[in-house]
Every structure is written in C-alpha cells, then in structure tokens.
C-alpha cells in the first residue's frame, strides 16, 4: 500500500469509468503520453483511464499510432513524455517483462506465438512466473519440479479449455489455423495472470461466425477472470457491441472518447474515420 501511495499521481484526469468501477483504483491510468521517433511525433497527449473490469476499445485509421500506444503501454518503447500507471504504479524505465509482472499482458497484431512449441507449452511459457520451482530443482528434476509441472499442466489445460482449444494442446503452435492462433495468443496472455489484457486486432482474419464467437469469449474473459480488456480493432461491429468505452485516435492524438453511442454520433469521428468508412460502405 505504501508503494502505491508514494507513486500515485494526484492529478485527476478525464475518466469514463463504468459504474461498477467508480470507487476502485483504475487498472490503467495514462497521462499525457507521447513519443517521438527522431523528430517525428508518433503519439502525443494520449490520456486514458481504464477501470478494473472494463472493456475498452481503441480505434482509428491505419497508421494512427494504435500499436505504438500498445508498445508504449508494455514498455517495448519508452515514452518521450507522460506517464503510465498500472494498478497505480508508474512504469517509467521498466522493461517489458517487469511491466508484465505488474499485471499487463498483450497479444500482437502480427501473431507472435512460439511457433516451434506446442500450444500447451506456449501457455506454460505464459505461466512462467507463476510456476514455483527453483533453478536447481529444474536442473536436477527434483520432486518439487514434477509437482510444479503437474500443477502447471492442469491449469494450462483449463485455460485452453476455456477458449475451446483443449484438443489442439499437443499441436505445434505454428501449424494451427489463423483464428486458433489468435485465440491461443489470448490464452497465453491470460496465463500470465494479468489485471488488464491488451488485444491487438483480435478479430483480424476471422470469419463472421468466428468473430461472433470471439465477442462472447471476450465478455466471458472479463466475467470469469474479473479483468480489464483494452482492444484495438477495425471490425466496428465487434467494437460497438463489446466495448463499454471507446477512444478514437488519429495522427497520434485522441480525437474522441466516450461510450459507443457517443462515438457513433461524434462528428469529428464520423468525419475522420467512420464517415469515410460509411461512405465506402
């Protein structure tokens, strides 16, 4: 608690917290975030607050800086300006794996599974920090190793089962169909025991029925694990149906924030983004 209070910033920001999360510490609190790549500003003045059990979306045209924001949140890039607080802790200067331990997990736009390993092993890699087994014990395969492995297997199978992937557990991750790989990446992220999970275009490459299935699964994840979900998606149907709050970015800046209804009616959004798409459609 001490660490929390020391690192808490007192600046109130625009929040759009859901009713159920109003009295709780936001799981993700981003203030005035920005990054420059050699003079080019990729992201600037990005603010968002996400409650512990909220599903939010991040939309915007291609090249708007969405993935860059995810990379900033997971410390793949260090921000030039602003701060990121995960469960109230500032992630400044932290490495990706440390940020993950704070409770943020993610999937990737271009799937990054460990292709040479089985689906089960992919999930077990995700559970790495949870498996309690000393280095010596793994080297010498002491009894505690077998105990820990057994437990890990059980939990990994449960997680795979949760996303309907139990029957591909022994298949090489690289050999799985695209949609399955996307879901496997989500399982792997869940395996790290996160309090927020970032999904980078989870429905990309899925057919409509798979997308519908995914929407149910996203809600089930939140309801089962009680965690926040923050997703980038181009499929407006999914975003509008699943997300409780949506932020729109263009040219690295937020141009609108609000509930799906608000976004749908926001003139700036319609012009910059939806308008075009609707006109196309």
């Amino acid at each position: 608690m001490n660490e929390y209070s020391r690192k808490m910033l007192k600046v109130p920001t625009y929040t759009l917290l859901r009713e159920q999360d109003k009295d709780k510490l936001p799981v993700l609190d981003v203030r005035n975030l920005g990054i420059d790549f050699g003079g080019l500003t990729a992201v600037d003045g990005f603010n968002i607050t996400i409650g512990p059990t909220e599903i939010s979306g991040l939309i915007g045209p291609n090249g708007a800086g969405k993935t860059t924001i995810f990379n900033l949140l997971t410390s793949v890039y260090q921000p030039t300006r602003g701060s990121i607080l995960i469960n109230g802790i500032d992630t400044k200067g932290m490495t990706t794996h440390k940020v993950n331990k704070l409770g943020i997990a993610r999937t990737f736009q271009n799937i990054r599974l460990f292709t040479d390993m089985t689906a089960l092993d992919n999930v077990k890699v995700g559970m790495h920090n949870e498996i309690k087994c000393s280095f010596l014990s793994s080297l010498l395969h002491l009894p505690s190793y077998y105990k820990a492995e057994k437990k890990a297997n059980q939990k990994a199978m449960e997680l795979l089962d949760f996303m309907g992937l139990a029957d591909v557990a022994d298949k090489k991750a690289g050999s799985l169909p695209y949609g399955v790989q996307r879901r496997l990446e989500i399982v792997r992220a869940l395996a790290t025991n996160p309090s927020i999970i970032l999904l980078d275009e989870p429905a990309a490459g899925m057919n409509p029925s798979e997308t519908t299935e995914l929407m149910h699964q996203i809600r089930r994840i939140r309801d089962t694990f009680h965690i926040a979900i923050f997703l980038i998606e181009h499929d407006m149907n999914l975003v509008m149906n699943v997300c409780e709050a949506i932020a729109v970015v263009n040219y690295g800046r937020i141009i609108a924030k609000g509930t799906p209804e608000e976004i749908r009616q926001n003139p700036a959004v319609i012009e910059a983004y939806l308008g075009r798409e609707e006109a196309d459609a």
Partner: protein
Amino acid sequence: MQILQYLINGISIGSVYAIIALGYTMVYGIAKMLNFAHGDVIMVGAYISFCVTNYLGLPSFVSVLAAVVVCTVLGIVIEGLAYKPLRGTPSLAVLITAIGVSYFLQNAAQLIWSSSPKNFTSVVTMDPIVLMDDKLVITGEVLLTVAACIVVMVGLTLFTSKTRTGKAMRAVSEDRDAAQLMGINVNRTISTTFAIGSALAAIAGVLLCSTVPTLMPTTGSMPGIRAFTAAVFGGIGSIPGAMLGGILLGIIETFSKAYLSTQFSDAIVFSVLIIILLVKPAGLLGKQIQEKV
C-alpha cells in the same frame, strides 16, 4: 618523436587490416554471412602475385592484375559451389561451410606451394621517406596501402550509391524479400558481391604481403580474424566503418605493444574491442537496428 613513428607503424598494419576488413564488411553487409574464408582468398591472391612476379618475371602491376582475376574467379566458384546452395538456410550453416572452404584453401595451398615460407617481394619500389634526421620513417608500403584503402572506400561508396548494380546490392542488404519482389535478381547480386569482395581480397593480399613479407598457406588466417574484428569494431556492414576500425585497431595494437605490454597486447586489443562494443553495441559507425514490433 617516438610516438609518431609508432603511430606510423600502427597506421601501416592498420591500413592492411582496413583493406581486408573492407572486403569482409561488404560481403557481410549484403550477403549477411561471415565469410571466414576471406582471409584464405587473400593468401591465394598473394601466392598468385608471387608466382607471376617470381616465376614468370612479369612486372608487379601485371601480377596484381593476375591475382585480381584469379581471386575473382575463385570467389565466384566458391560462392556458386559452396554458398549458393545454402541460400535461405540459417546463417550458421553457411558459416560452417565457409570454415570448410577456409580449411580447404589452406590445405590446397600447402599441397600446391608447399608449407615453406616464401618471401614476398614488395610491389612498392619507392624509397622510404625519412624525416627528422632518421627518427621518423614512412615507407612506401604505408602510403600505398593507405591510398588504396581510401580509393577502395570511396570507390565502393560511389559504386553502391550511384550504379545500378550497387543500388541493387543496397536493396538486397536492406530487405532481401522486398528486393526480390522489385525484380532484383538476388542470387546474381550476391554473386557479384562475392566477385567484388574476392577482387578486393586479391589487392589486400598483395598489400598485406608487401607490408609483411612472409607468405605461407596460413598467412591469411590470423590477419583475416583481426580484420574481421576490425570490421565489427567499425560497425560491420559500414564501409567507412571498416576503414576506421582497421586503422584504429592497428594503432591500438601498436601503442599497446609500445607503451603497455608486448606480452599482453592481444589481451589489451581485444579488451578494448569489448569495451567499445559495450558502449556502442553496433560498432563505431554501425546503425542500431530497431526491431519492428
């Protein structure tokens, strides 16, 4: 004045490293492979030049030309037989093949030219420049090697930025797949790179042996490793980096021998290399490549 003489000595051996490193870096930059046989192609070049001068009695520029021709052909043959079939496999596989080629060339040279050393006659006939009453001597070899380095460096830079083939090489080095899609013949471009790299090796061989006259089948291997170190030092893949790295390595080596310890000079040189790489992980002039997420 002592220090100046050591500096000249350092530049002398450094420029030899530099010209070898230029070949290394060029092949690495484009074909993305560590060609450990480069040092042995140098040795072959030196032998060819030696034979042409000593057995056929032809003037030294003819011998250099002969060495360039033979090494270029040798480079193309090696590339076609041993490296090309492995295109697209892990770089380690090609590395091991290159080592096999290196063993092959050394042993073949021993069978052809025997293992007894030969004394290479310098291609430079100029008298050394003597300054400050005998305290400072600059040999013609130093001047020639430095000049050759600069010419090769400028030539390569112009070649890769101005000519069609050169631009294709740069494209292949940046992104092989994209270059292929743009209609560049990647295989031919890489073969050309090897041809040029081997021609450079021939020139390097002549200059190496003009500076260091002992010529044996193993002559190329140690300077080859040093030059490889120099190329990394300067930022592998970078043409000016290879030149800078080579000359700096030579100067560091000479100074550590002169002022610190001759016994431990190898350890000192390599420690400096490690320290530089820790401060500048991509070498002095290398580009740090950000991984795309």
